[in-house]
């Protein structure tokens, strides 16, 4: 049996990395220098964890994770003591309605809601749907506008499954939320989730005869800075895009990247013009181009991109970074982190300029979330 996880001891200002893998979740802690990391885990040994989150709204400090396995399904678990104990094992809170014909396969995204609504949470799940909680995660309800969407019969699963993986609530407008799914594409509600309209104009679907359908795109990730909520960055299954109108239209910004195929994308916590991606060679060879592990960074909202390679292997690096395995920690200079399918976690404490290997030998990494503790 793996050693038991005991949780982490951390102080305000410390940085916590939550790493989900195919065989459990791991927690890493460092002080604000981010030079030395202590590992705790695996939590939920043997279970895949595709979604983790830290909710610090309203003075709370709650870790969330969604462990699951192919045998017994997925649960939503929470810890109020940084992983020492987890509640929720006995709970069955996320379920599709009987008669819907849908059964929960996986939770792909745990998204604490707006700061102004500290008990509001959203989760994106497979098969594609958005669940909402208004009581801090104690109970969950599928949003009917997506559950019963007329497009649902035509949404088809990508290689990872039929997943709703990105949830972006408008920080200023409680009626507006944007989601992305693979496949299906981008949908936005402007009426509190009652109705959802496809928002894929300009995003191509390389794998369909009609390259620009209303919906059906395979969007891999969308990133947004809360100071510029109308501007969105999108990593597509072939394609790198920017929207300046909340997704009403999208423009190609693959300016100088070695490939516009990839999964992961994150925006800088303090500079809305700075975005990080990790391109992959192609859909047929989902490893970093030229076997060089590079994070590409734009500082001008996608007008140009520069490779960040200092400290990263530049030969024989057959690495893959999945859609939720890249994140930033909120400090200044920003910490940037990513995990790979080969079980490595890398970190930068200088806005992505240089990198250190934080951990090797983990199971395949499915998600990474980072945060400085309040």
């Amino acid at each position, binding site marked *: 049996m793996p050693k038991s996880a005991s949780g982490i001891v951390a102080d305000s200002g410390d940085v916590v990395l939550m790493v989900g893998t195919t*065989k459990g979740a791991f927690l890493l802690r460092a002080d604000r220098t981010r030079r030395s990391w202590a590992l705790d885990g695996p939590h939920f040994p043997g279970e895949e964890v595709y979604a983790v989150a830290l909710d610090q709204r309203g003075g709370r400090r709650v870790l969330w994770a969604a462990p699951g396995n*192919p*045998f*017994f*399904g997925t649960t939503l678990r929470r810890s109020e003591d940084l992983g020492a104990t987890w509640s929720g094992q006995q709970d069955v809170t996320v*379920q*599709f309605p*009987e008669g819907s014909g849908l*059964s*929960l396969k996986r939770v792909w995204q745990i998204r604490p809601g707006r700061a102004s609504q500290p008990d509001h949470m959203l989760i994106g799940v497979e098969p594609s749907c958005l669940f909402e909680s208004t009581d801090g995660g104690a109970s969950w309800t599928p949003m009917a506008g997506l559950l019963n969407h007329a497009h649902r019969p035509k949404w088809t699963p990508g290689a990872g499954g039929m997943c709703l993986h990105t949830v972006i609530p408008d920080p200023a407008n409680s009626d507006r939320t944007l989601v992305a799914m693979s496949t299906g594409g981008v949908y936005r509600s402007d009426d509190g989730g009652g109705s959802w309209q496809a928002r894929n104009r300009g995003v191509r679907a390389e794998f369909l005869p009609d390259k620009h359908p209303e919906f059906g795109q395979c969007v891999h990730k969308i990133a947004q800075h809360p100071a510029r909520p109308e501007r969105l960055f999108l990593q597509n299954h072939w394609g790198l895009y920017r929207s300046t109108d909340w997704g009403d239209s999208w423009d190609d910004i693959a300016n100088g990247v070695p490939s516009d195929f990839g999964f992961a994308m994150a925006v800088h916590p303090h500079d809305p013009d700075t975005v990080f991606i990790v391109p992959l060679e192609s859909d047929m060879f989902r490893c970093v181009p030229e076997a060089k592990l590079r994070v590409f960074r734009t500082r001008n909202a996608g007008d140009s991109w520069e490779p960040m390679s200092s400290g990263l292997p530049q030969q024989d690096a057959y690495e893959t970074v999945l859609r939720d395995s890249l994140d930033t920690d909120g400090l200044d200079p920003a910490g940037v982190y990513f995990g790979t399918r080969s079980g490595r976690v890398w970190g930068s404490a200088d806005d992505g300029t240089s990198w250190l290997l934080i951990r090797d030998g983990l199971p395949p990494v499915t998600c990474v979330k980072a945060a400085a503790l309040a």
Partner: protein
Amino acid sequence: MSITVRLPGPLRQLAEGRTVVDLDGRPATAGAALAALRRQYPTVYHRIVTEQGDVRPHINVFVGDEDIRSLAGLETPVVDGTEIVILPAVSGGA
């Protein structure tokens, strides 16, 4: 005599540590037996059966030595003394 359900290791902690659960009542089918299990240990039931009432794809439910998928599914008859065995399938590992 009663009808019993033998649980795999990962589910026992959800059933007060029990390896074998004696079902209340006299269910006549495998489906009715699982419904009885639901009344006694709802979390265990939901780990075996989806919200649509289907046995999860990588879980096998045996009546005697036979997987109910090769019998009559949830309509498979059970009688007093039947032991229903829940086992993870070899297909689900990772």
